[in-house]
């Protein structure tokens, strides 16, 4: 590598470093302010906490006590895990079935699933809420089949794409040996689907964990999820917002996502690329 390129590269390195600082700054600002007393956040947001303004973890204690954020956290985790498991199991089964059994009806369902991906949520939000309330799906258990319904478009599409490229011979051999279709699917097919299952799981988990409008409409303000709890904390008490507690809530909402990201980064990036190419 010649010197000209080396100088260019160190310049680019410095530029990227500067950009990283800019990218991390908003998160740093929230984190720093979460340790300041609530009266010093609005007035002097850029000042680093000092002897006078530093309050330790007081904001975290207040934020946790007043907003029910721990409950919201557990609720969101339950809904996300439950829905993702349901989506992975049921949509992979459906995708395998409609690819393997050729019929006009199955083709029609496949295109309906595809169609659902282009419909914005606002189109169905009012009527869907009414239907779900009638069916008593407006609770943290009932919302799982609701997510299965809304998640099925993308998930069936992605699983089908994979199944179409899978050889039939192994499945046929298993069935000739006397395995039922159900056993064949779970013992032979599903293990082969695993890479796609991870991608589908990550895409759905990111969506459900952060989702706001659907849980807001179905669970309302009593069974708050994280996003709903944050929105309520901000809108609920105009004029008397506890900025300290609010900053702490934001930090508590961000930390698990960042930890999850740092652990599963490889899969998340792969999921994004696969999802983009197919979606």
């Amino acid at each position, binding site marked *: 590598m010649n010197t000209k390129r080396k100088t260019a590269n160190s310049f680019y390195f410095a530029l990227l470093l500067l950009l990283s600082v800019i990218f991390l700054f908003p998160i740093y600002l929230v984190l720093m302010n979460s340790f300041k007393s609530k009266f010093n956040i609005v007035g002097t947001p850029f000042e680093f906490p000092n002897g006078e303004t530093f309050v330790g973890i007081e904001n975290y204690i207040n934020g946790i006590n007043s907003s029910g954020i721990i409950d919201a956290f557990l609720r969101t985790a339950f809904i996300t895990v439950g829905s993702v498991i349901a989506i992975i199991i049921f949509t992979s089964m459906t995708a395998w079935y409609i690819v393997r059994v050729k019929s006009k009806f199955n083709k029609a369902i496949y295109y309906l699933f595809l169609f659902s991906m282009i419909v914005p949520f606002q189109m169905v939000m*009012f009527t869907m809420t009414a239907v779900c309330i009638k069916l008593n799906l407006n609770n943290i258990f009932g919302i799982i089949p609701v997510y*299965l319904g809304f998640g099925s478009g993308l998930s069936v599409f992605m699983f089908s794409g994979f199944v179409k490229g899978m050889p039939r011979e192994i499945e046929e051999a298993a069935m000739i040996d006397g395995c039922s279709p159900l056993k064949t699917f779970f013992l032979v097919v599903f293990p082969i689907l695993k890479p796609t299952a991870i991608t589908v799981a990550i895409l759905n988990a990111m969506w459900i964990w952060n989702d706001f409008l659907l849980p807001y409409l179905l669970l309302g303000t009593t069974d708050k999820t994280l996003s709903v709890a944050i929105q309520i904390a901000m809108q609920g008490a105009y004029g008397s917002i506890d900025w300290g507690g609010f900053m702490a809530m934001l930090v508590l909402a961000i930390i698990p996502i960042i930890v999850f990201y740092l652990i599963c980064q490889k899969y998340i990036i792969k999921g994004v690329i696969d999802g983009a190419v197919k979606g």
Partner: protein
Amino acid sequence: MEKNIKRYFPVFVLPTLVSFVTVFLIPFIMGIYLSFTKFTTVDNAKWTGFDNYIKAFTQDENFINALWFTVKFTVVSVITINFFAFLLALLLTRAIKGTSFFRTVFFMPNLIGGIVLGYIWNLLINAILGIVGLDITYDARYGFWGLVFLMNWQLIGYMMVIYIAGIQNIPHELNEAARIDGASSFSILRNITIPMVMPSITICLFLTLTNSFKLFDQNLALTGGAPARETSMLALDIFNTFYGRTGWQGVGQAKAVVFFIIVATITFIQLKITSRKEVES
């Protein structure tokens, strides 16, 4: 074998299909019907023909405002996000140390939920404007550019990852051959890199397009539409019509149908373009 599997329809397909039909298909059909009626709940609809559609465009200036705001926001976001994402992808595919660290940092904001993102930027922008004694609701321009910055912060890393994958797929020999022939870096970019990553560019353009057009959470958290309704985008305007104005639910549903038609048209154009590109290559 097919016959054998066929009998298992209730086990394999029914759970997914029943959920899908209940929460999506039936509400979708009801939604189209209700857009032609006056109603406050789904049970008391009265047929009114195209009344709601006419009202949405003539008696409700918020809708037209929201439509323009959304279009302007989408155009600016799509251009800036893709420009910066592509630039970063070019930088991160050079032999610079720390590329995986930088990629990690730039991608991170994408995972944070829209509501949280909105409030992070609300704090940051109000902190900056606070220096001159203003806040984000003072002028619609602040809200507009705030949303553009937020959207860039969230989506640049995502698009960058897709561009990086595209650039890394270019066969190495192409660049080498061009360099040996004495092509400049700019000419390599113009004649090799950009044409070769065209599929990624199409994907990213439409991902940013639909994501910006359908934006809701970030809009709600950053400005909530303030001042007045000037920074409401379409999705937020539809939400406010449904839940903020009694007797206007039908108009809200009509707006939602218009919204759906616009989004579907964009997607349809995308599919046409992508399939044509695939045939060409």
